[in-house]
């Protein structure tokens, strides 16, 4: 029994972190948030060189053949540096969708393109986690029509994987009949779009779309939880550092019991989340009967703890936390967006209750 990261896993995460530490500095993120897409491109290329995007692609298709835990560790590092990246959608959810629902030809074709860097696939499954605004897609032959709301990973996407609730399908971003509306969210570190499709040509994945989509959502939620974990880790570290540095009443504010206890409370709530995220990620590959439940527990719990850390850390930073000067709000907003994407905590907890026959 070994509950923790292997040396390889630690090294993988460290190498991504080290890379992002210099490649995704605050000033880069700020530039991206203000409309310069080059950070997303740079990170994509940089991470591609590290082989990072290929963790979940099976070795036979040119990938690394690693698991969801490795993907979560990578996403945690992204959250730590609020890095723009379609990793969760393009290299985790879309890969799993293909692995689960693609036939051999489709896998060969698409996983190969992903590994080669010629296909970057954004993902829109919101309709499967609670549909508003009459969104929803209908497939007719090899054409698809309707609306897909909150499609993630639009930074660099060349394609989108969407759901008709029965089937998983892929469209090219530049296809006929695609009308794209950019959504502005609080989180300027990631791009979300709404797609209106009219007889858009699509590839319908051959396998069981419903099952595949469920696995994609399970994993997507684990990765959003991991992203919040990384972002919250950084917010606590920033709080502690700031509290040692900032003086009021001739003492560092970190020597005030109120500030100390705020930091201790953040740690006490967040630290167990680390093990929960690890396990939820691990369960996706290794404990199939717990995968769906643990994904929901991790997603909803990190939504709550993340919100607490985001708020408390901002308070520890006082007025400076409220300004744009330190950029702390990028972390605050990233955590805020993660809370709602792929289902808010109440929705996700109700699903967890259903899974256990409680509802």
């Amino acid at each position, binding site marked *: 029994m070994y509950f923790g990261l292997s040396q390889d896993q630690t090294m993988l995460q460290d190498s991504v972190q080290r890379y992002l530490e210099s490649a995704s500095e605050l000033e880069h993120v700020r530039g991206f948030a203000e409309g310069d897409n080059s950070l997303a491109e740079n990170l994509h290329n940089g991470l591609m060189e590290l082989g990072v995007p290929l963790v979940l692609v099976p070795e036979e298709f040119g990938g690394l053949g690693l698991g969801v835990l490795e993907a979560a560790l990578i996403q945690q590092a992204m959250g730590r540096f609020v890095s723009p990246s379609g990793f969760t959608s393009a290299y985790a959810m879309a890969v799993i969708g293909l692995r689960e629902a693609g036939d051999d030809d489709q896998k060969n074709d698409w996983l190969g393109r992903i590994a080669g860097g010629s296909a970057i696939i954004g993902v829109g499954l919101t309709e499967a986690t609670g549909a*508003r605004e009459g969104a929803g897609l209908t497939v007719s032959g090899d054409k698809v029509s309707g609306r897909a709301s909150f499609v993630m990973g639009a930074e660099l996407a060349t394609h989108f994987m969407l759901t008709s609730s029965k089937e998983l399908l892929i469209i090219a971003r530049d296809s006929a009949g695609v009308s794209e509306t950019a*959504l502005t*969210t*609080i989180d300027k570190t990631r791009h979300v779009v709404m797609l209106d499709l009219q007889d858009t040509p699509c590839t319908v994945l051959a396998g069981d779309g419903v099952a595949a989509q469920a696995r994609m959502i399970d994993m997507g939620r684990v990765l959003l939880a991991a992203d919040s974990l990384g972002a919250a880790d950084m917010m606590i570290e920033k709080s502690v550092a700031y509290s040692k540095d900032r003086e*009021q009443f001739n003492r560092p504010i970190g020597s005030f019991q109120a500030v100390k206890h705020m930091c201790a409370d953040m740690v006490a709530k967040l630290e167990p989340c680390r093990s929960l995220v690890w396990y939820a990620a691990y369960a996706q590959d290794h404990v199939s009967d717990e995968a769906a439940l643990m994904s929901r527990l991790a997603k909803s719990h990190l939504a709550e703890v993340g919100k607490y850390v985001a708020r408390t850390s901002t308070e520890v930073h006082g*007025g400076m936390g409220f300004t744009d000067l330190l950029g702390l709000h990028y972390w605050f907003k990233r955590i805020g967006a993660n809370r709602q*994407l792929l289902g808010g*905590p109440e929705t996700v907890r109700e699903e967890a209750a259903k899974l256990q026959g409680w509802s």
Partner: protein
Amino acid sequence: MDLNFTAEYEDFRADVRAFLDKHKADAPVMANVGLRSEKRLKWQRILLEHGYAARTLPKQYGGFGAEPDSLKQRIIAEEFARAKVPGGIAGQGINMLVPTLLELGTEEQKEKYIAKTLSGEMIWCQGYSEPGAGSDLASLRTAAVVDGDDFVINGQKIWTSTANQADMIFCLVRTEPDAPKHQGISYLLFSMDTPGIEVRPLMTMTGRAEFNEVFFTDVRVPTSQIVGQRGEGWMVANATLTHERGMLGDPDAALSRLNSIAEIMQNEHVDGKSLMDNPVYRDRLVALEAEVYAMKFNGMRLTTASSEKKSAGLAGMIVKLQGCELNHRLAELAIDVMGEYGILFEDSPFLRDHGLWQTHYMFDLGLIIGGGSAQIQKNIISERGLGMPREPKAAKA
């Protein structure tokens, strides 16, 4: 306990309503209107004339000269809120500088500044906080050194709202660097056009620049521009804090926020079901409703205490702490019920309610932090309100 108003007050309410019916058309819309817009200045003139602005201030300085009466103030606030008409100008000049000058200014200062401030022609900003002096305001370091007939000012202020539009600033500076920190401060008035002043907008997490930073480089201000004596600035600044605000603002603001959330919940649907049909959200809504009413009634209790010229004690001391927290949590619920739509922002398509819930959520957090952080509020409640012992002074290291 009597929630009815006596005939005198009902008559007064009728007067206010009649006034509003007649003049409403002259009022600017609630949304932001330029501080110097003619519409706004005209509306202020009308309000001053009828006693709905500067109501209790002396006539000789441009006020209306009425007796203080917090019930009438509340009626004014209620009726203006009901008519969705903005009240009088409520900038820091009117709220903070004018009462200070009335109490501690020279006759010349009163004549020179008060009437113009009340009319809205002269706009002030407040130069108190500094990057290194927030909760510990008295540690401020902006220096003013006497050179001939002038103070020469160097340093920096922060959190200065409307600095980019203000004519004048009332500013705390350190004139006695060797005195104990509370005794080395002076309170100066000077023009924002004085050479050497640079204003930089301060962007916050809401994505807007609600505040500014103000930098002073060899700014020369005549020594006559001081209120009170040298070294008395801390006392002068604090004298203002004991003054009550003229207008209490919309007494039911939190309640209307609550009602807006209830409306969203009734109108938005997920998978075809109204959000109000979600019992978990509904339970949170009702729990917040109880808090909203508790704060509303607490406010009514304060109004009564004020009209009786009594201190409301703890009931007054907790308002900022609890009120900001409650507003923050109302916004939190609104965002949660909207789900993914709750994170839309700024000018996004499909935005709900102009995105104001996210703005509230963040700005209210700013309010929890600013103007006496929650931690400082709790120190005040426990030490001044409950008489708990202060922290012992730290030994010199």
